[in-house]
């Protein structure tokens, strides 16, 4: 399990290649890349600042991977999340999960993203043509997380 919080960009190709070589019986790697959109709620975004809570962030992300481990059989998981000042089309986050088969890897990756969105201490502030604004938490993200309470696996 690897969790990194960093200001630098990351190389998705390199990271996925590392992950898929952890075990020779790996059959599936599912990944999610999140990036800064140039549009949000109809407004043009010029910058995005990401703040976090050092110490708690890493612990929260590791806890989310461990929760996923109790639900599905997968081999390894990686989370890289950037903080600091970003611009549109910059990468924000990479979540990748490797496993023997695809169904578990898909579920675990989606689960990790849904919990990261609602439990990991990151906060986004956008700069738009109207000035700066803190992003509001979305109800759709809470609902996405609640889906997992209703399913056994």
């Amino acid at each position, binding site marked *: 399990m690897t969790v990194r919080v960093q200001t630098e960009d990351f190389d998705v190709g390199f990271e996925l290649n590392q992950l898929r070589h952890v075990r020779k019986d790996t059959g599936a790697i599912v990944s999610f890349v999140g990036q800064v959109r140039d549009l949000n709620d109809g407004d043009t975004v010029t910058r995005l600042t990401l703040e976090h809570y050092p110490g708690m962030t890493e612990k929260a992300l590791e806890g989310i991977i461990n929760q996923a481990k109790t639900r599905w059989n997968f081999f390894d998981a990686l989370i890289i999340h950037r903080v600091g000042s970003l611009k549109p089309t910059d990468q924000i986050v990479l979540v990748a999960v490797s496993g023997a088969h695809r169904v578990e890897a898909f579920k675990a990756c989606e689960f990790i993203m849904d919990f990261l*969105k609602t439990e990991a201490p990151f906060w986004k502030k956008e700069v738009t043509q109207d000035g700066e604004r803190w992003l509001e938490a979305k109800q759709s993200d809470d609902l996405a997380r609640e889906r997992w309470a209703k399913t056994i696996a």
Partner: protein
Amino acid sequence: MKIKIFYFARLKETLKFSTEDLELPDDAFAQALTILKLKALLAKRSDVWQQMLLGKLKVRGAINHELVDDNAKIVDGDEVAFFPPVTGG
């Protein structure tokens, strides 16, 4: 009792505080300190603090890097944090 408090995002920006060390007399209040009681104590500092901690903004609390609810107990040496709902990813 001594605790450390961190503020993040909109709270940090508006309160103009990112962290503070708070010392409280070891009385009955301190013995029974919770997230909600600490919010109420801090809210007495000014209208802005009142608005930020007990206003419309939903404020989440963490103790020693764990998300907790308003009734969670705070003890000597704890690291407490207040922040708005998270928006990462």
